[in-house]
């Protein structure tokens, strides 16, 4: 390795500076700026210059804001549904396609296609497909069963029990192709010899899947879990397009939106002009995210440790 010199440092810094500039200005600075903003209240007029200092009032309000804590719960539920469903759908597709098939690239492209399409449009289309009475799903179920089936009377998006799941299904079908491509690549990298050795040992298909395939796919699964967590915290467009946070559900006497995820709630506050409160919510979410990251790091490190000991 070359010896560190001041010239080297200067060159390195030169290469890094454009990135560091944007990183500092638009990612590091906002963390502090957001904290600063969270101490200010809604403007007395609309101008940004006239925010009132309100101290910790925004944080006190968060503490008693049922809607906010509920939206955190919905976000968690969204993640808990979409991550496993997304991973299993992608994995299933990848396993099906990991054969010598005629027209394999056609299937691969067809499954991948929805991924490149705009989320808002996909959301709008799915809303219409789910629509009770006139949506495609309602038509097909009416034909198969009767008028009085759930899809025709209430619709998946109309009931608080199923609305979030319906959003998740639409998003999983949109996103499954992406995970599928990642899994396919990894599957093709597993040497045939490993499976042959297992065959000689008399392993069943399930044993081979559990003891060979899954461990070798672990990095991809980890990656998909991480992006899934970020995706749930960022979820907004799908909710905006499909449910606007509804339908309402009564939990312990309080009426709350059954698909009102944190991202959507934050947007609602921003839209109503409550900038200070929105900043405070962002900050709470930031702290929660860092907490999750820390837990995840610990958890994953322990997993890695186990691997090594084996």
């Amino acid at each position, binding site marked *: 390795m070359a010896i560190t010199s001041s010239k080297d440092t200067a060159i390195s810094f030169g290469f890094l500076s454009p990135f560091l500039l944007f990183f500092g200005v638009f990612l590091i600075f906002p963390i502090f700026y957001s904290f600063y903003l969270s101490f200010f209240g809604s403007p*007395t007029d*609309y101008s940004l210059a006239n925010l009132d200092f309100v101290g910790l009032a925004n944080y006190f309000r968060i503490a008693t804001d049922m809607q906010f804590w509920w939206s955190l719960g919905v976000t968690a539920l969204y993640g808990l549904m979409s991550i496993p469903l997304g991973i299993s759908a992608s994995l299933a597709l990848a396993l099906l396609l990991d054969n010598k098939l005629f027209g394999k690239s056609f299937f691969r492209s067809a499954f991948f296609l929805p991924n490149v399409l705009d989320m808002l449009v996909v959301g709008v289309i799915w809303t219409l497909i789910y*629509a*009770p009475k006139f949506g495609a799903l309602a038509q097909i179920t009416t034909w198969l069963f009767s008028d009085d089936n759930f899809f025709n009377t209430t619709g998946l998006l109309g009931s608080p029990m199923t609305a979030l799941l319906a959003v998740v299904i639409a998003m999983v079908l949109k996103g499954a192709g992406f995970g599928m491509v990642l899994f396919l690549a990894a599957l093709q990298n597993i040497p045939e010899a490993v499976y042959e050795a297992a065959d000689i040992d008399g392993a069943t298909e399930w044993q081979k899947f559990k003891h060979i395939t899954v461990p070798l796919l672990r990095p991809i699964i980890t990656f998909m879990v991480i992006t899934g967590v970020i995706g749930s915290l960022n979820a907004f467009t799908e909710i905006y397009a499909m449910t*606007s946070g509804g339908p309402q559900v009564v939990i312990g006497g309080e009426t709350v939106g059954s698909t009102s995820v944190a991202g959507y709630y934050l947007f609602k506050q921003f839209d109503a002009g409550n900038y200070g409160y929105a900043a405070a919510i962002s900050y709470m979410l930031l702290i929660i995210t860092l907490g999750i990251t820390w837990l995840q790091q610990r958890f994953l490190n322990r997993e890695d440790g186990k691997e090594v000991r084996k």
Partner: protein
Amino acid sequence: MSEKKIMIFAVIAYIALVFVCWDDSIATSPDGRTILTFWHTYNDQEEQVLRGIIKQWEDKNQSFTIRPVRIPFDGHKAKLRTALTVGQGPDMARVDWSFVCELARKNSVLDLDTLGFAKIRDQYLAAPLETAYIDGKYYGIPDQSTCVAMFYNRQMFRDAGLLAEDSSAPMVPQTWEEFIEVGKKLTDKSKDQYAFAMTNTLWWNLPFFNSYGARIISEDGKTCVIDSEAAVQTLEMMASLTNEHQIEAGAWRPGAISPEQGFVNGKYAMIFMGPWNLAKFANTKLDFGVGLIPGGSKGTSTNVGGTDVVIFKGTKYATECYDFLTFFTSAENQKDWCTALNQLPINLGAYDLVSFEDPHLMMFMEQMKHAGPNPVVKDYSLLEDLVNPEVEAVLSGQKTAKEALSAAQKKVQERLIDF
């Protein structure tokens, strides 16, 4: 084609794109006139008439041009808030009556009396004018006053044997009891036909509440009285339409087909709708009529809606804006507007110029005589946000009307009245 060629082609295409599309300045008009921006929420038909009026005004004011910008009605408040926050608001805008108060108290619209509004104020209908009267000053000029009435699909009534082949008389039921009876005949689930469809927002629900004489806010504006006996009765009746009698299509549910869409497609026989869609529906093949909203214990009633045009403090050309807006709402132009669009004039002078023969419009005039009071609060959007979820909880059968309305009453009292 080799990869290199593709790369070169892509780069050239990109550079061309930058040259064509990067510039996003719209500050100047091609002929050097000063641009005044007017944000509005009109529909296709209304915008066409608006453009005609703008053209007339421009012919008289050669150094100015007006740029109408259309914003969807749902969300026009949020979009104006953002634009004003960043100092890129328009010169003038057409806003919902419920938004004028917020704009005035946030110090962003001009007091029109400073521009000489006092002189011509008497031209306008008193009730709509009141909506722009905040804290002793007039902040807006009414441009439309509306209410909703019951639109019904004649063909569906005929098919159900409720309307003679050649009759054109309004046959909408008189009371909610009759409405339910008629509704059962109109509903045919096997054909996806429903007698009625409703949305769930407070403003659209006011005709129900008003027909039972249930107020949302007490007359002095000090207490929320949405948990009254009459309101509970109203809400129970509303819920029965969709649950017990199943004559309502469930259009209030998230993800369902909206009343307007279903009506245009001949799937919903009756909906609440305002006069702003008369011209639009007339363009379709739909055979529709307008009738009074069925009566509850206090007879037929409806809500009061409408919009006001306001001038923002940020404008440099307040006089010209004022000149245009008064021109726009003058008796002469209101006549053209209302004739073309089949609407009710806002300017008293226009009533002498327009001949009201259209039966739909007559029905609206009749309906408006029975309009109930709108709730007057500081932040109307918040009122909607607090009440709508509770009403939905009743419609979907998760709460009783009494529970939901007392919960709503408590919240409104805390957040809007005592706060």
